[in-house]
């Protein structure tokens, strides 16, 4: 089994050899390491993408907007990802961002996961019919469980999720009420002495 440190190093060097700047190659190394740690096929997708790149051109999108569409060429997932990561603080205000035709979108995914941590919001990433819930770069929840290579994402939608509870208020109240059974009802003596400051903590 390859160690994560080997995966990081080899992905970084391969990215540089494939023509990316060192700073971007560093990002790819960290991303591939993260994908493999989480059980998503980073190495497979990266290897295949670099093989394809030799004979095919990809669009390097720079400034991102609400809808990013290029009809002739597919977007490079690495350049699109780096720019998403860099621009995420302003993109967050758009709530939802759409891309058409990103090549090898699995390689785009870790950039979005890291962006989720930067803005402190969960992000829902949809690659056609595959969904990924990105949780502050801590974990990824998905309906996509096989390790196939995805060569193209036709429609990619990125949605910043508001920081709201995943449960209803009455569910919280019920659980809170149960938790109160660990508390002690304070009598006068406890009120006087147990907190340390007495009943009046003003000077």
């Amino acid at each position, binding site marked *: *089994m*390859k*160690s*994560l*440190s*080997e995966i990081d190093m080899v992905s970084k*060097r391969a990215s540089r050899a494939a023509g990316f*700047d*060192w*700073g*971007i190659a*560093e990002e790819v190394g*960290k991303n591939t390491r993260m994908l493999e740690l989480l059980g998503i096929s980073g190495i497979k997708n990266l290897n295949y993408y670099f093989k394809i790149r030799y004979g095919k051109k990809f669009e390097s999108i*720079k*400034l991102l907007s609400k809808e990013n569409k290029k009809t002739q060429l597919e977007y490079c997932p690495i350049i699109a990802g*780096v*720019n998403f*990561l*860099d*621009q*995420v*603080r*302003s993109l967050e205000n758009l709530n939802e961002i759409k891309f058409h035709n990103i090549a090898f979108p699995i390689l785009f995914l870790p950039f979005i996961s*890291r962006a989720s*941590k*930067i803005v402190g919001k969960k992000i829902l990433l949809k690659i056609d019919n595959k969904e990924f819930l990105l949780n502050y770069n801590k974990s990824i929840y998905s309906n996509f469980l096989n390790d196939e290579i995805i060569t193209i994402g036709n429609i990619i939608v990125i949605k910043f999720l508001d920081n709201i509870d995943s449960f209803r208020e009455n569910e919280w109240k019920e659980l809170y009420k149960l938790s109160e059974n660990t508390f002690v009802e304070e009598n006068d003596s406890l009120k006087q002495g147990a907190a340390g400051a007495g009943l009046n903590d003003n000077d």
Partner: protein
Amino acid sequence: MKVELRDPNIVMKLSKLGSFHQSKLSFLRSFLKEFKDWEYKRDLFELNTLGFGTAIYSFKKNNRVYSLICFANQLDKNERSDRVIATKWDAAFTLHDGVPSKQDIERLRNEVPKQEVGRLSYKELALSRANKSVRVFNHVVDSLSEGKQPDISLLSNVGYLYRTTAVYGSGKFGLADRFRIKDREEIYGPFRLEMMLVYLVRQFTFDQVNYVAKNKNPKKAVSLDPEICRSLGIGNSTGLGMAPFIVNHPTLLNNWILARETALKEIREIEKIEKKDSDLFTAYLKKSIKNITSWNTDSEYQQKKIKSLLKDLNNFISFIDKDFNFSNEFAFNEIYLWLENNSGDECIEYIVSMMMEPYDKIINPLIKKMSSEEDRYFDIPTNRTVIELKDILESKYKKILKIDFSKSENNQNFWFISKNKEEPRLADRFKEKGSDLEQPLAIARDIKKLYETLSISKNSCTMDKFLLENNHLRHVVRRAFIVEKFPYSEIQDNTISKSIVPIDMLRLKLSFFGALKFDPRSNKWLRICMFQGAPLPEQLENFDDGWVYNSLN
């Protein structure tokens, strides 16, 4: 009185870093302290009469076991080489996490002797190999088998029976990644498992030499005197492979240096020095002179440094003996200021190390802060502006920004990875091919480029916009924002200049390992000795932490 931390622009010069010495912060010393109450055992010793075979040593505490597995092989003298291009060694070692099963041992017997071309698993923590100092090993075997102890002067000259030529850890060749073990309290200090491996290898060399001597002449042979064993360490040949490490791990480098600088600051701030502390400092200082006078090297560069160190130390001792009173307020501060005015870097840094000796209370908490969670600082804060980054460069890279990289001598060398051994190398860009595949280790040059580009950019431009057109500088943009938070994370020198002395980078790292007797063999590799004078495993429970200065050599 408040003392400021020393200025990173001075401390982080390579000539300064290349003058560092071992100290109480050194990893091999903190390893011994951490493992002193662990149960040591030799679990297996299956060698043939010539000393070839398998041995296993372990440290155990509660449910945790670390096992060193040794494979000693017969090696033709023509195959023995310390160079990284070697493919066979006298012995190969791995540190296994837990008790190895029979299947583990068989698997490792196949893989460990192959080293870089073998495959290890997540159950292994470190990997190494070593060659005999044949002259010394054979002399010891011959002497012991004749019932005599070996010639101490020969042993003193060399200092070891074996020298390692590489010690690998942290995910190399399939070894366990650091994330798997980083929360174990016993390995909070950096390189602790690598230190354990080297320490147990040292014990194997004694057991092997005794065993071979005994088999050579069972009736007459004696064992190597434990005091002589104690005075021997493990040699190490180190080349350029180690140099880029300190460039590639800026926050880790910061934490090492910051620990040292914080220790110095806190010691200088002690108002009243207790007599027992000043006595210990003076006693160790005087004892340690022996280490320097027995420091052998053919390197003119190092001989010059030793000579100046000895001269300065003698001056300093005479100052302490005649003119100094430890009952003065802030006595160590006074000493430090005297050194700055009267001594060279070698001596200043030597005394800085010595000052730490009496102060476990200051040093021990710092040892736990010497690791780093590097990934936490990886993301670039792209909401920061051009002017903010420019300010960082102007304050953190003052001298670097003055270097003229259009002059060939400032741009003479390039770092690359050898295809043959996948190891870092340094070469002249005007004479050799390959500079188009240069590694991103020319930090000074790239920082200067970044500064020039920032200077023609709009001050209010944020990094996300700046990087749109300047991703070729992304690696140094990331770095500058790290350096902003970590003052000692950057070498304040040009690592590609004609005048670079790469062994200064090696020496910095090796001093933190706790190496003694640096012996440069060129400006790109050197030999050192580790654990010389250290307690043997049976003596660990109750050992004197000043063992470094009690060395017989």
